[in-house]
C-alpha cells in the first residue's frame, strides 16, 4: 500500500492545479469545455500509451518494485499504481498550461510574423494569444 499512499499527496496537488486551471478557463465563455475535452483526450492517450509502454519497460527489466510496497494488482506486468503517473501528468499540465496562459489582451505577437502566418494561417491563427 506504500505506493498508493505515497502517491495520494501528488495526485492531490495535481487535482488542485487542475481545478485552478478550470476556474481560470471558465472565465471565458466556451473555454471550460475546451479545457475539459482537451484534458480528457490527453488522459485517454496517456493511459493507452502507459498500458503498452510501461509493460514494455517492465519486460525490458529497467526497474522493479518493492514487493511489500505495492498492492500486487497488475495489468499484465505493470503495477496498477503506475497509472497514477499519467493521471497526475494530465491534471497537473492541463492546469499549469491554462494558468500560465496570458490573459486575453488582443495583442498577439504571432500575427506580426506575416511570412509564417501566410503559410500557416489555418493552423497558427487558431487558439489563444501568446506573449512569450
Amino acid at each position, binding site marked *: 500500500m506504500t505506493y498508493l499512499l505515497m502517491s495520494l499527496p501528488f495526485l492531490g496537488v495535481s487535482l488542485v492545479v487542475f481545478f485552478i486551471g478550470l476556474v481560470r478557463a471558465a472565465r471565458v465563455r466556451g473555454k471550460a469545455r475546451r479545457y475539459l475535452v*482537451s484534458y480528457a483526450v490527453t488522459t485517454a492517450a496517456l493511459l493507452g500509451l502507459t498500458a503498452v509502454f510501461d509493460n514494455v519497460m517492465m519486460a*525490458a527489466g529497467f*526497474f522493479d518494485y*518493492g514487493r511489500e*510496497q505495492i498492492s500486487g494488482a497488475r495489468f499484465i506486468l505493470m503495477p496498477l499504481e503506475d497509472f497514477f503517473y499519467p493521471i497526475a501528468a494530465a491534471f497537473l499540465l492541463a492546469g499549469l498550461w491554462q494558468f500560465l496562459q496570458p490573459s486575453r489582451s488582443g495583442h498577439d505577437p504571432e500575427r506580426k510574423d506575416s511570412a509564417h502566418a501566410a503559410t500557416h494561417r489555418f493552423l497558427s491563427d*487558431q*487558439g489563444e494569444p*501568446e506573449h512569450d
Partner: protein
Amino acid sequence: MALIYLASLAASTGCMVLLDYRYRLAFFRAPVRTLVALLAGLVFFITWDAVGISLGVFRHLDSVWASGILLAPEFPLEELFFLTFLTYLTLILLAGAQRLIDARGRR
C-alpha cells in the same frame, strides 16, 4: 552498457519536437510558458520518484538495454529523459487537442 533505452527516449522526444515545430504547439508557440510548465512538471515527478525511492517502492535493475548510469541511488539517467518526455508529451497532447477543438469550432 547499452544505449537502446536512452536512444528510444531521445528519438521519441525528438518526434515531439518535430510535431511541436510543425504545428507550433508548445515551445515553438510560447517558449517561456512551455519551459516553465516543463520545469514544474519535472520537479513534480522527480520529487515523486525520490519519495518512492526513499520508501523502497522503486528499485533500479541493471538492464541489458540501459546505460547503467545512475544520477542518484536507484535513479538512472534514463529516468530523467523519461520524465522529460512524459511531461513534454502531455503538453503536446493538450496543445494539439486544443488546436483541433478550436479548428472545429470555427468551421
